[in-house]
């Protein structure tokens, strides 16, 4: 089966009923998305499909033929972080970091829809995500900073996902 992941077409020899999360981590060695609850209730596995955030742990790859899948690795690299990654680093929004990749993907999807979200909109959008460390205030700040960075960034660095 062919999947479009981070703009490249990948062939996987896995049962089509397999959740995307397992395919990303085990077959494609993309480890940003995390296994948290396996039930779509904690948000750690969140990736972007087309332009919306989805839980990869409850999404079998059979549903994804022809869809564009973006993981955190697809946004930026350590050398060239995307605005959302830069903002999370600058605000030091991670403590243990397990939930953060999912949070960033949800935030990225939010900013695609609403480039200037209010705090209440950010909180509402991030509601499906759990963080046990308690960095929530920093996460909200980081998303505000990312919105600012995206607004002022040169067009070439804005990933069109």
């Amino acid at each position: 089966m062919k999947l479009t992941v981070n703009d490249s077409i990948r062939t996987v020899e896995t049962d089509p009923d397999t959740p995307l999360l397992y395919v990303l981590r085990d077959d494609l060695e993309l480890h940003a998305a995390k296994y948290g609850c396996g039930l779509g209730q904690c948000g750690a596995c969140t990736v972007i499909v087309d332009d919306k955030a989805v839980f990869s742990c409850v999404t079998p790859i059979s549903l994804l033929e022809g869809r564009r899948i973006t993981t955190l690795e697809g946004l930026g690299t350590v050398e060239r972080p995307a605005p959302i990654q830069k903002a999370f680093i600058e605000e030091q929004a991670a403590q243990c970091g397990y939930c953060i990749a999912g949070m960033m993907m949800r935030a990225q999807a939010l900013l695609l829809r609403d480039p200037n979200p209010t705090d209440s909109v950010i909180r509402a959008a991030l509601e499906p995500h759990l963080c046990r460390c308690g960095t929530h205030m920093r996460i909200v700040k980081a998303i505000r900073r990312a919105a600012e960075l995206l607004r002022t960034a040169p067009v070439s660095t804005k990933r069109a996902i």
Partner: protein
Amino acid sequence: MTKHKLMAFVTLCGALTAVTIALVYEPSIDPVDVSAVGFDAALVQKGADLATIGDCITCHTSPGGKSFAGGLPLKTPFGTIYSTNISPDPETGIGHWSEAAFRRAMRRGVAPDGKHLYPAFPYDHFTLVSDDDDKALYAYLMTRQPIHALSRTNELSFPFNVRFLLAGWKMLFLGSGPFKPDPAADPIWSRGAYLVLGIGHCGACHTPRNILGAEKAQPFSGGEAEGWQAFPINSASLSPVPWTEESLKVYLRRGWHELHGVAAGPMAPVAENLSVASEDDVRAIAVYVASGMGRPFDGIESGGRTGATRPSGNGSKPQSGGSQTVPGAPDGDIGARIYASTCATCHESGRAMPYGGIDLSLSTLLSAPSSRNFMRLLLDGLPATDGRKAPIMPEFSAILTDEQAIAIASYVRSHFGNKPPWQDVSVRLREARDDQAAAPLSSAADHRPAANK
């Protein structure tokens, strides 16, 4: 002769006009300075309990807005009506309303200045509320935080924007309260009837409406609310397992029941309010509603479905997902495959609610004649509730294409609902998608009722 006829005609016209004016006209009631009035704490508490059952805060608060400041748009077949500010702000709320003016609004749907109110404010139910309870509700509302917020202008087309015509509507459809209990009836049942028919205004959603927006004489046989079907809550109940007083009480207070499912859509805030209402009152409501559903069954009707095969209790199964798929998905049926690989993770997990999803053969959604509620639930999921233990379901709108959503609907309808295929899946899916796209991002916490105490 001709002169006499003319005289008669003029007299008749004059009389008709006088009668019309007498029927339409309502005097204004003078404003009062409520700040000078003290309210007894026990009375305020009684009003708080009634307002909770009446769900006042849900319609009179906009998403993310201040409690009771109004502004929630209510879409009706006649246009959009915005709820009003019922906080005690003197300029924009009801701060200058006297108790007599408040009682007239509740009983006859008239504002203090004599203007007729739209029955989106369900005074056809509130007319049944007793004088004493109106007094308590008044005390409660007058002691809330005053919020300065102008009400938005309704968007109604002609002739629905002409308020005096509502006098005619009232002549046709407004009975006159207050509620008169049957002295021979069980007092708990009577209390339930009073709450359900009056302040609880359950029929506002659960009773079908006629072309003029009034409830038909088929109480509780199913209506609609905000794009959702409000299921029948009488003998025509669609629930695969019959409701009992006890299951209704648990459902209304907790927002879900393992044999019936979850209060979703516009029923969610109702249950959230009832979770803090007086337990005796919720029991009375359950007793009354259950009595209208016919003989309580023992939970073994409907093909022996009881849901009792599932383990229950906290920790009886691990809470994280184990094997992500259910083996043996039938080949060929796309809906069956998607169900097995996506839905069964929770719905056949063997974990009791709220940690697992409901056994879909118990779900009322799947026996309903329309796919409306199913499509909304499938797309929106069930967001986490604030501070209460309740099932969560991820939203699937982003992941499912229209074809995939329809395939799931067809499969679960026939496999678990055991019913002929829904005829309206495409149109209901479109409606649900459009409404979801139009909905502002807001938090469940934004809809949380403010502390009543």
